[in-house]
């Protein structure tokens, strides 16, 4: 009797687990459909004419019809916007990682008076929404004579990115072992030499995390270009997109092609490096 009731409970437990797992799969599949359908519809619409978009929004298009994409390539400033985004994002990341590593190295590797104050100073910037200081920033950029230049954007992105970068890098650099450093010091290596040849090669994983955490918000930023940049030739991709969406309001195929081309670089890199993206973008929030 005891074996019978045992198997009964086992079976019931198994069925319950199966039911639970089934429900979980249904929730996840539904969610994935909701997440991906808009992106697939955008991809399809980029190869369709207006009539096709309105009549069969879900239909698979003829992918050899590149009319919309050619139009964007030849009739808009899209390539210029793309190039500007690459320049601004690239320069910002290089400066953020350089300055961020310098500060983090000093705080994380050396004991000196005021080091905790320095760290606090950077951390204070973590939670402050810099958007709300846009009026003083606008006046500051005007006084420095760099309004309407890419330098104004690079400067503001570096200021935005430094706090999190110092935070992540300090945590990482402080945990590196002392042995290598001490051995090099015994051999008479200078401090800059120790940093450059011995410690920096070890921090590469943290640099990747910090780089990704900064690259996505900078690449996608719209607010600061909106305020600082007026010249069409200097606009970044998200800002250029608003200009261009205003011009082609009736040509939906071209609008979707513009959205597709703007999102394609990020989507492709994300698919290749999804683990690094997820780790990098949640790095500040996951302890």
């Amino acid at each position, binding site marked *: 009797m005891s074996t019978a009731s045992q198997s009964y409970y086992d079976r019931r437990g198994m069925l319950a687990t199966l039911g*639970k797992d089934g429900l*979980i*799969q249904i*929730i*996840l599949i539904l969610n*994935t459909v*909701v*997440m*991906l359908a*808009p992106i697939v*519809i955008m991809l399809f619409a980029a190869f369709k004419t207006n009539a096709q978009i*309105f009549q069969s*929004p879900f239909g698979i298009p003829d992918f050899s019809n590149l009319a919309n994409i050619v139009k964007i390539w030849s009739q808009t400033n899209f390539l210029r916007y793309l190039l500007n985004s690459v320049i601004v994002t690239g320069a910002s990341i290089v400066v953020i990682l350089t*300055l*961020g590593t*310098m*500060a983090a*190295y000093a705080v994380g590797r050396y004991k*000196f008076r005021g080091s905790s104050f320095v760290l606090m*100073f*950077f951390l*204070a*910037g973590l*939670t*402050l*929404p*810099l958007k*709300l*200081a846009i*009026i*003083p*920033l606008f*006046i*500051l950029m005007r006084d420095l004579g760099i309004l309407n230049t890419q330098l104004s954007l690079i*400067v503001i992105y570096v*200021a935005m990115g*430094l706090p999190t970068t110092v935070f992540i890098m300090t945590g990482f650099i402080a945990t590196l072992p002392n042995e290598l450093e001490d051995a090099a010091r015994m051999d008479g290596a200078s*401090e800059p030499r120790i940093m450059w040849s011995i410690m920096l090669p070890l921090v590469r994983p943290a640099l990747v995390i910090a780089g990704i955490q900064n690259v996505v918000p900078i690449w*996608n930023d*719209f*607010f600061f270009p909106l*305020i600082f940049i007026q010249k069409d030739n200097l606009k970044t*991709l*998200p800002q250029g*997109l*608003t200009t261009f*969406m205003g011009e082609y309001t009736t040509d*939906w195929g071209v*609008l979707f092609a513009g*959205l597709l081309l*703007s999102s394609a670089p*990020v*989507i492709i890199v*994300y*698919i290749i490096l*999804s683990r690094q993206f997820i780790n990098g*973008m*949640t790095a500040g*929030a*996951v302890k």
Partner: protein
Amino acid sequence: MPGSPLVSRRLWISALIVPPLAFVALFVVYPIISAFAYAFFHWNGLARGEFVGFANFYKVLFTQPYADWTVNAFLHNVWVFFALMVLQNGVGFLLAYCLWRELPGAAFHRISVFLPVVLSTIIVGFLWKLFLHPLFGVVNISFRGLGLGGLAQPWLGQDSTALWSLIFANAWHMVGFPTLVFLAGMQRIPGEILDAVRMETESEWTKITKIVWPLVAPSATVVFTLLFVGSFNWFEIPYVMVGLEGSPHGATDVLGLYFYRTAFGNMSGSGQDFGAGSALAVLIFVFIALVAGVITFKLRAREIQI
């Protein structure tokens, strides 16, 4: 090397620390302090005029039509915060719990839920603006195709649905973020605790409320605080989908749009006022700092160290 080792060590540390510190001082600390100072001056365009005390604050809080605009926008932000708390953080927790099981396909679902997060808000805003178009948008076309033509709405064009449409677009964009932060929190719960719970109860609900939820408290603190700051800074989605005026007639106006219009003028280029704009920025800033501080403090108190 010149000088004593101690001096050169000090020089070296200074060389490392001064450039980044100077940068943050000039482009973060100085502007934020200035933002407070600017609110107490009268402004003629871009030129600072005389000191006026609290006049700018009085203007945006107590004189019409500013007072009504301020309250209207603020209440919309409050609404957005609570709606996203459910649609973004609530759904995110549920999805994290589902992903945590590591059933077949979980890796794929994890990548797809985070995909919209990496897209620009501008792309997301335009995409949903096109999808929600009353005549040609895929949402209404689908409803009509399913014989549910009655559900087809001018989503962004009427008071009752406009703000909800923006909230939905935002939730679609960002739900992957709380999902993966919660998931990381759940994955840190030690296996022994979970085994012990499995002995005690079969109820999934007890497991969630008594064990999982308290143990992911640090993740909750972070995503709640970030959502709060984000909700009261909300700008890009409404700017792209309904424009600077928060159409239709202010039904989607939020503090971000209102601040921008006040400081930099509206589309017709009129009404630029750095004084009133700075006062609004200071009020929003103080409000965010106070409440975010309280949220963090209260939530930290209930966190459990494993």
